[in-house]
């Protein structure tokens, strides 16, 4: 009996030792991993530093190389232009070789500078909304002479309408130029180049296919690596630098895009790159944040104005999807017409147009907003009753310290644009109502309105009156109107405020039209006037 507890105790002791050993082992493992991890981090830092030094070195050296090259190019051109004296056939040939190689060296250095800048993270895309079809067409037309000279058949298969995407237009132009340039270089006369732009669910896919020399499968991976020129027998055209595709890849990836190649040796190649379609909400946020980031450094400002359509669904029902889309496009166009600066821009987001005004102070934004309001009023004449448009503005850093807050702030300050009924182009209510009307303007030197024929009613609604007047009246002026309506003995007293006054038409008696909004008027009276005049 007494041996059993002893056995147990031994077992327990053994287990305790085992446990201690294992605890010790796991502690040792942890320590070891920490040491190795720290080593890795240190090495990584060293590598980054080396990479940075390399990029700096390339940037500096390339820059220094450019200066003497520029001089060489100038003098080679002087010789080639025969300014120092006429050239023999041989001399001309040699000078042309020199010039060609200077050009090539310049290209190489520029590419090196490009790639070193991209790699050092100094090149940030200046994104804006871009229509890739328009962009591609621009590049294609620049290549037209070369394409025609080689009798190449160029097919552009564009999936339109294509939504705008948020990219750097210059960088994208460079991508297209590089890829189309390559296709052209490696395609023989009477070959074919097909450029496609397709609208995929989450991205835009662009491809450039040629019937050129193609690439062997084992070389496909090397294509995008620097200085890898495969099968470069001295062909026609300019010799490359071996950096074009590497730069192209960097540019695409800078936009969170992807690039790949499909090719058959001797048959041709197809380069495909995709760019993500960001939701307009993200675009606006990113855009505003970007501008703010830029503005931060310079201590500058940024204002935004949100143009939104209230009760979009109702308007959609009345006007239809197509019309509503048209209205949004129109609003965007109107906004763009009110711009005074090249950096001002608009971004559309579902039922809203966001106007972005970099460097605009609060007062500037207010001025733009007023101009915008006037322009939209004019536009809305046709649409009164069918649509209501709101405007709201906010300024960074006065009212918000980041993009999201700024947008929200603008949205909380939305105000409906009031379009007086009088400004409608309504045809049915255009009849002039020949009744007496008296206008009393407080503070006016003489009461011009004493004469009955100073003004006439053009039309009226629940919110205001449209008048024909003899003079241009100052907006904002308060006035009282005494109006005698047919079959009524007592004149109706109305208080109102002048909203606008403008010379329209060729009416000699009443050359001006003036819009008045009712103030302090019960809704019953408003309705009564409206009904009366309508009848």
């Amino acid at each position, binding site marked *: 009996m007494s041996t059993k507890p002893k056995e147990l105790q031994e077992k327990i002791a053994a287990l305790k030792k085992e446990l201690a*050993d294992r605890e010790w*082992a796991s502690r*040792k*493992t942890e320590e*070891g*991993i920490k*040491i190795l991890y720290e080593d890795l981090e240190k090495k990584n830092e060293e590598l980054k530093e080396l990479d940075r030094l390399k990029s700096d070195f390339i940037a500096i050296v390339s820059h220094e190389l450019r200066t003497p090259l520029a001089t060489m190019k100038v003098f080679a051109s002087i010789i080639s232009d025969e300014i120092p004296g006429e050239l023999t056939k041989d001399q001309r040939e040699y000078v042309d070789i020199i010039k060609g190689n200077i050009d090539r060296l310049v290209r190489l250095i520029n590419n090196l500078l490009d790639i070193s800048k991209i790699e050092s993270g100094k090149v940030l895309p200046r994104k804006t909304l871009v229509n890739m079809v328009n962009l591609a067409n621009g590049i294609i037309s620049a290549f037209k002479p070369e394409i025609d000279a080689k009798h190449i058949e160029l097919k552009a298969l564009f999936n339109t309408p294509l939504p705008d995407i948020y990219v750097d237009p210059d960088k994208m132009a460079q991508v297209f130029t590089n890829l189309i340039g390559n296709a052209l270089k490696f395609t023989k006369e009477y070959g074919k180049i097909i450029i496609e732009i397709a609208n995929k669910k989450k991205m835009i896919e662009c491809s450039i296919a040629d019937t050129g020399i193609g690439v062997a499968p084992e070389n496909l991976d090397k294509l995008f690596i620097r200085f890898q020129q495969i099968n470069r027998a001295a062909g026609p055209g300019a010799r490359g630098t071996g950096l074009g595709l590497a730069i192209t890849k960097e540019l695409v990836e800078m936009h969170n895009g992807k690039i790949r190649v499909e090719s058959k040796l001797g048959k041709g190649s197809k380069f495909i790159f995709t760019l993500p379609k960001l939701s307009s909400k993200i675009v606006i946020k990113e855009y505003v944040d970007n501008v703010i980031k830029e503005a931060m450094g310079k201590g500058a400002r940024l204002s935004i104005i949100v143009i939104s359509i209230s009760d979009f669904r109702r308007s959609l029902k009345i006007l239809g999807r197509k019309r509503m889309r048209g209205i949004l496009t129109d609003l965007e166009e109107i906004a763009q017409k009110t711009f005074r600066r090249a950096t001002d821009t608009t971004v559309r987001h579902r039922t809203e147009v966001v106007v972005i005004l970099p460097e605009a102070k609060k007062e500037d934004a207010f001025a733009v907003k007023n101009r915008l309001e006037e322009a939209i009023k004019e536009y809305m004449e046709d649409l009164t009753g069918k649509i209501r448009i709101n405007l709201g503005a906010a300024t960074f850093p006065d009212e918000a310290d980041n993009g999201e807050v700024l947008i929200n702030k603008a949205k909380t300050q939305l105000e409906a644009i009031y379009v007086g009924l009088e400004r409608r182009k309504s045809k049915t209510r255009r009849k002039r109502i020949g009744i007496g009307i008296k206008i009393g303007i407080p503070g006016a030197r003489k009461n011009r309105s004493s004469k009955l024929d100073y003004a006439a009613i053009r039309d009226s609604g629940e919110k205001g009156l449209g008048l024909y007047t003899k003079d241009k009246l100052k907006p904002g002026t308060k006035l009282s109107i005494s109006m005698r309506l047919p079959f009524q003995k007592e004149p109706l007293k109305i208080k109102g405020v002048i909203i606008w006054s403008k010379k329209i038409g060729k009416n000699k008696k009443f050359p001006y039209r003036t819009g008045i909004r009712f103030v302090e008027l019960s809704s019953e009276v408003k309705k009564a006037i409206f009904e009366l005049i309508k009848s």
Partner: protein
Amino acid sequence: MAKTILIIDDRETIRTSLADVLAESGYRVLEAATGEEGLEKAREEKPDLMVVDTAMPGIDGHEVCRQIKEIERLPIKVLIYTGALSAINPLKAKRAGADDYIVKGLSPLNLIEAIEKLI
């Protein structure tokens, strides 16, 4: 009298750099490039401490340790070390009878610290 340390590692660069650091710290340092050579020197020189790499061709570090501790029962402290993430196995070293186990990084500091704790 200066304590004697025997280093067993098949990689010469690591062996010599470690030997240099330990010699500078005032130890008498012996080197061996294989497990067999290490065992031989251990028997002859009776060092105070052996610093042994785990992964070696022929007799590996664990086996050297077992030989010293379990079979020959020599009064020598054994410190086993490794440099590779995939080779970390302190329990195996413990089972072989090692007095301590260390993962060696770029810096030899932690190894020297462990040595000083043992002797």
